[in-house]
């Protein structure tokens, strides 16, 4: 008990009433500001997400939270009597140095602002940049974060996105699948068309409108090449791609329509005659040539 009394007496010598008041004030500032900032961040995020899109919500939350933290820090510093003037002076010098060092970052930030204004994509869209395809997780000040379909995390600087071609796969609600269908030259193209249209009509993912389209693409070296164009809701594109090609294969097999392998025909002399080929046994070949057959 005596020890506690001594300790209290010793503390009283160092901590005056004013200091206690200051600590209390600072504690109050933090206790009020922090929960308030979290509340405001949550509200801003929900409001802008509901009104616009998830990535606007994220940005709004950050715009509310981080400046709020700065204001809280400056308030605490002014309560502590720390003047901001020398800090600002030092910041100016540091700013110049940082400016040279952070050109890329500043470029990314400005590119980010242009991305927000232009809205080429939003959070949860699927985009392709160069060879990377993924779902947009967030659009931040410096970069865009993607999650690829094999669950890898990709960070793409905003500057790169502004400079590169970006494909937004899920921007529009429907998407067309372009299937290349090759058939042998001997096949009746009219019949093939009917069969393909029938397949499209029966496929559960293919839309009736826009109508499927079959285009005679080319007289290929080994086959007649057709383009089979079918539309589906964008979320069912992969299902359409998988099922319709399988159905084409199965139906062609059923109808006896040949999907040719790449092949070359060699003619000897006359264009209408094939090369003559005669099958001989090893003994026959030996007796005719007078040599032993090679192993």
């Amino acid at each position, binding site marked *: 008990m005596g020890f506690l009394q001594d300790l209290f007496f010793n503390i009283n010598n160092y901590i005056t009433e004013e200091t206690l008041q200051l600590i209390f004030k600072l504690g109050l500032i933090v206790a009020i500001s922090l929960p308030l900032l979290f509340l405001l961040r949550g509200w801003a995020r929900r409001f802008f997400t509901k009104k616009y899109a998830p990535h606007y919500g994220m940005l709004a939350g950050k715009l509310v939270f981080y400046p709020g933290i700065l204001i809280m820090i400056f308030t605490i510093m002014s309560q502590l009597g720390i003047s901001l003037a020398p800090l600002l002076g030092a910041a100016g010098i540091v700013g110049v140095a940082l400016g040279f060092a952070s050109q890329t970052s500043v470029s990314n930030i400005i590119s980010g602002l242009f991305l927000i204004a232009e809205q080429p994509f939003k959070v949860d869209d699927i985009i392709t940049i160069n060879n990377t395809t993924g779902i947009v997780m967030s659009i931040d000040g410096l970069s865009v974060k993607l999650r690829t379909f094999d669950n890898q995390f990709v960070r793409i600087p905003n500057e790169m996105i502004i400079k590169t071609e970006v494909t937004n796969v899920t921007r*529009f*609600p*429907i998407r067309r699948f372009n299937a290349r269908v090759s058939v042998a030259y001997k096949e009746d193209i009219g019949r093939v068309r009917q069969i393909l249209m029938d397949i499209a*009509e*029966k496929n*559960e993912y*293919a*839309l*009736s*409108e*826009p109508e499927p*389209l079959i*285009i005679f693409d080319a007289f290929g070296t080994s086959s007649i090449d057709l*383009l089979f*164009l079918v*539309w589906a*809701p964008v979320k069912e594109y992969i299902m359409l791609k998988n099922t319709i090609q399988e159905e084409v294969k199965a139906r062609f097999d059923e109808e006896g329509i040949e999907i040719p392998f790449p092949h070359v025909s060699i003619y000897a002399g006359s264009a209408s005659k094939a090369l003559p080929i005669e099958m001989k046994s090893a003994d026959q070949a030996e007796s005719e040539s007078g040599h032993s057959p090679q192993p």
Partner: protein
Amino acid sequence: MAREIWGNVSLEDGKVHYFAMGELHCWMKYHHEEIWIAHCHNHEVKQKPNSEAPPEEIEWQRWATQNGKGHVNILPVFPDLPLVVNSEYALKISPGTRIQIFCRFPIWVRIRLPETTYTLIEMPTIKLSRTWFGTPTEGELCYFAKTKARRDLSNVDKRPNMVACPIRVVNKSGDELNFEHFCFRVERLSMYRNEEGFWADETQIIYQGEDLNSDVIMTGNLPKGITKKDLVSRPRKEIHKSLATRTFKRFFEDTSLIFGR
């Protein structure tokens, strides 16, 4: 057979209750305090379905219900998406003309719990393909249906799985209306039943011209011989008195469709 399907059904433990409507085949049973339902359509199975049990490739679905009883209610409903209706025979309606046509569409079957009206499952009696109503950049998913757009159904064969929808079309524009394609918002219709079959209440479409939205009015008028007492199912969505929609919107003007790229 059709009349016996509708209404409350008590499923006996282990015994399969079967019904067929249109191309739909449905099996139900009550087993281990669960309601089991399996269904298929004609084209989905290789062999003709029988009433004893579903084909092997068809799976049962199970519901554990709150009251633990095998009571279900079966009722007819409209499809869950709007219909893009394609008239088999092109019908041109001259300016200032007002006509009534009848279109028939396959109904859906809803199986629900009678006490809570919680829906267990909905199945089409005929599976319709889906289509897009709108432009490549915006629109809505619909079912695709063909109709003969008859002026009179009295000499037409009755089909228990079809609902007849009277549509009054008024061409108030100065142009001819090419009644080939239109988007029919069946989710706003009520369904009635009499000895003739299923009927919807009247829809009035007022065409104002190609550049203006058409007025779609659920007049609430019932066909002859139908009264309010014949109501079997309410609309899926609340009825608005008038709904200006792009009912006759031109579907596509995408040049990529012309040039195939």
